[in-house]
């Protein structure tokens, strides 16, 4: 049997080869690491997402330190207080800039032109981040954490998740906060970034220099909103 006739059969059975070809087709390196960006990316609005990612890196780095040294360290020592504060304020910056990024993408209708999965993953990251932060608040090991947990337990019971999401159980909240949620958020942020790189940044709705839509055509015509970019 010749090489040319045997190869397709082997290809079909070779999952590694199939995966490699899939990745080469869907994730070309020139898209993953572009050295040029369209001119409309030159706006401070596109900095919001980058700042959110930078804040996430600080959250993870300071969180690793807090995990290693423990509650006594972050409550008693000066350096522990400082790292704890860095962790807290990095979370505030993360949320502020994630919401600003969300506003920017919402008003740009960035789910256009096949980018709906990118938008949906971003929304999921936002939702999971809220729960991740909540587990952090109830895992502080102080009176503030107890106050939040005692109040929140009624809400959790009211929506029917209290049996397996017990906010009064420090071990469960701490475990979720330092393992499950960071992995989930970080993984989905990477997926979000790859999606952005593969599709590129959405074009402006009315790019400068684009031909105005013809009067006799409705605005919903594809070429009316996707004119040439100046």
């Amino acid at each position, binding site marked *: 049997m010749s090489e040319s006739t045997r190869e397709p059969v082997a290809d079909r059975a070779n999952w590694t080869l199939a995966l490699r070809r899939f990745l080469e087709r869907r994730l070309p390196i020139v898209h993953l690491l572009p050295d040029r960006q*369209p001119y409309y990316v030159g*706006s*401070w*609005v596109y900095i919001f997402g980058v700042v959110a990612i930078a804040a996430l890196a600080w959250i993870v780095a300071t969180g690793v330190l807090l995990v290693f040294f423990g509650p006594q360290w972050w409550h008693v020592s000066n350096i522990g207080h400082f790292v704890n504060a860095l962790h807290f304020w990095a979370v505030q910056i993360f949320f*502020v800039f994630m919401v*600003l990024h969300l*506003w920017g993408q919402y008003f740009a209708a960035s789910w256009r032109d096949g980018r709906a999965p990118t938008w949906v993953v971003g929304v999921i990251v936002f939702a999971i981040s809220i729960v991740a932060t909540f587990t952090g608040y109830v895992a502080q090991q102080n009176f503030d954490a107890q106050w939040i947990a005692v109040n929140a337990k009624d809400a959790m019971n009211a929506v029917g998740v209290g049996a397996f999401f017990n906010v009064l159980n420090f071990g469960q909240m701490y475990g979720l906060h330092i393992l499950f949620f960071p992995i989930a958020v970080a993984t989905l942020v990477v997926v979000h970034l790859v999606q952005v790189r593969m599709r590129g940044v959405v074009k402006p709705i009315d790019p400068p220099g684009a031909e105005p839509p013809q009067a006799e055509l409705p605005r919903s015509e594809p070429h009316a909103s996707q004119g*040439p*970019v100046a």
Partner: protein
Amino acid sequence: MDAPATYLNWAFILISIPNLLMILGMILLFIVALVAPFPHGSEEPGAEEHRHE
């Protein structure tokens, strides 16, 4: 610092001053990001073609 925040109450709206300041600051930052000029590097050869992609 441990004192409770001051709250504003107007009809059904109840919001603390710190939360209100955060929201107003974010709106201000968003507007500034829209209108502030973004520093552009010098145009490299081929940049113009890229603009027309």
